[in-house]
């Protein structure tokens, strides 16, 4: 992505770290080491990595319950992410949030959520704050195609456009609204972009499996927002390699469709374009796996929260 020949490898490594992380998380659930649910982003790495390369430090990011890739791309330490998913005291939310709430305020990750669409008004509020605090930040709000049928999406987009707020909306269109094909529940081809015009925004559809296309689109949108020209809505086409959540094999998807999208895998796409050899790609993969395994070992060794942690963090003053 820059003139530096090693920069390609850095980009690849970021995507591989996410891929390997997600693979381990799946195993942790399968092995019964973690209870509850998780929503993996295998296949969607390019959206997160491209976004992270385009944003500036301090740009608030609000992402989704399928958010491991966004937070890791933004810099969340793998150990902190694993520890949170494992419910350890050393997790990024002290073990209280779990897989769906990964966050790190020091990285301007301002929280993630488990109710579809509910973070969009929050992101718009954060962008509004930037216009008053003059902190120069551009908020980035990521959501999926299924979110576009929720009222909050439309309500918040409307105000963001009216107020010309510094915010970039990214719709990760992975073609499925949980277990239902998005095409079955919206009357348009592009659930986000085809509605952009309703809010006076440009229709932007990009290849979300092309990390460079994502970076370029988000950079342009960021520049526009920063210059006071208001929000952008980017629809990034991508695909979940797996199902909606950990127990879902995604069998409702046609095999040809899955195969087509596997052939568009963002990691191999990028490696091919930059002529990274298979051997080198494997080496980078092994490097990522090692890092992931080291982080996991540390997280597994960390303690569970003490029982008294249950009652803390409700109030800003613990005596309240």
């Amino acid at each position, binding site marked *: 992505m820059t003139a530096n020949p090693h920069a390609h490898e850095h980009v690849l490594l970021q995507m591989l770290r996410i891929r390997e992380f997600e693979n381990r998380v799946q195993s942790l659930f399968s092995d019964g080491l973690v209870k509850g649910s998780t929503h993996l982003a295998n296949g969607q790495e390019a959206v997160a990595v491209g976004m992270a390369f385009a944003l500036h430090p301090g740009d608030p990011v609000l992402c989704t319950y399928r958010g491991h890739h966004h937070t890791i791309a933004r810099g969340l330490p793998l150990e902190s992410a694993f520890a949170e998913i494992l419910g350890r005291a050393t997790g990024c939310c002290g073990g209280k*949030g779990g897989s769906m709430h990964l966050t790190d*305020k020091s990285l301007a990750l301002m*929280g993630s959520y488990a109710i579809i669409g509910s973070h969009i008004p*929050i992101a*718009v509020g954060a962008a509004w704050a930037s216009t008053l*605090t003059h902190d120069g930040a551009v908020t980035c709000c990521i959501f999926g195609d299924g979110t576009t049928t929720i009222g909050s999406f439309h*309500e918040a987009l409307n105000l963001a456009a009216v107020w010309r707020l510094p915010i970039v909306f990214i719709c990760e269109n992975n073609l499925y609204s949980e277990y239902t094909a998005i095409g079955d529940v919206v009357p348009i081809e592009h659930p986000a972009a085809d509605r952009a015009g309703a809010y006076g925004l440009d229709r932007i559809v990009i290849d979300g499996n092309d990390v460079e296309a994502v970076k370029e689109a988000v950079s342009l949108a960021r520049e526009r927002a920063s210059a006071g020209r208001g929000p952008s809505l980017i629809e990034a086409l991508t695909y979940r390699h797996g199902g909606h959540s950990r127990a879902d094999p995604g069998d409702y998807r046609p095999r040809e469709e899955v195969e087509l999208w596997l052939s568009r895998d963002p990691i191999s796409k990028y490696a091919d374009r930059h002529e990274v050899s298979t051997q080198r790609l494997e080496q980078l993969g092994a490097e990522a796996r090692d890092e992931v395994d080291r982080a996991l070992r540390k997280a597994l060794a960390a303690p569970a929260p003490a029982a008294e942690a249950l009652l803390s963090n*409700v109030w800003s003053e613990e005596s309240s």
Partner: protein
Amino acid sequence: MTSTEITYAWAINHAMDEEMARDPRVVLFGQDVGRMGGVFGVTRNLFEKHGPERVRDVSIVEHFVVGGAVGAALGGLRPIAEVQFADFLLVAGDESFHKLPKWRYMHGGAFTIPVVIRAPSGIQGGVGAEHSQSPEGHYWHTPGLKIAVPSTPADAKGLLKSAIRDDDPVIFFETRRLYRVKGLVSDDPELLVPFGQASVRREGTDLTVVAWAGMVPEVLAAAEMLAAEGLSIEVIDPRTLVPFDWETVAASVRKTSRLLIVHEAPLTMGPGAEIASRAADELFVELDAPVRRLAGPDVPIPQNMALEQFCFPQVPEIVAAARELIRW
């Protein structure tokens, strides 16, 4: 410092005005709060004084009024958000029951959410089932929210100022019936009414009555009538439900041995049930009579005022219940 006689609505207006002058991070937004000055006129002049950046009109969008307040707080502001009616807060159910109270906890305490939601509530006369409710109990049942229920102009101002300076989310219920009620209010911009400190509105020895918001004037009127019969009623206004000043209630019940709770919200699962239960649990040996609740009936509030008048406890009912408990 001087005091001035102003209305409950104007006291709320002054609290916002003073806090906005004191702290540039305080902002106000909601439907028609700007140029129009609020559907009940509570935000008049603030748009002109503090400017369109800090006093913002929004579209009809309760999800954003509450959710956007959370986001603005994350971005470093101290937002005051107004919904036109407390009933409308339920449109933003996810935002007010999930995001506002939980964003801090579920992210391990990473964030503080200094948000005030101003919610005009209660029966005012003929506006029906969706503009008349007193939903404070819903929010009391949601860990992570502070709740203010002022009954006087002085408390409305002092509690709102405390709410704005509080680092936790506050739902601030304003009783619309009281907006035009006048009272002496301190002009001191540093006079705050702390949360979690009940006010003994009237001292008495025969019965403790706990009431808040719009029921306080009714209970005080009943107490006055009972005094003429020689019955001495202690009236306690908790002023905030979260935190709740249980100590003041308990001390009063230890003195009177009798407890009546009066609220406007429907009886079943209403806030009075929590207070009654705690009294039964902790003050069992102190009590000389059953703990009783007077509350709105378990019906949607009808628009017709001939029927609506039965939807919150009236003075004669309070008088009768008090007599019965004292003579138990």
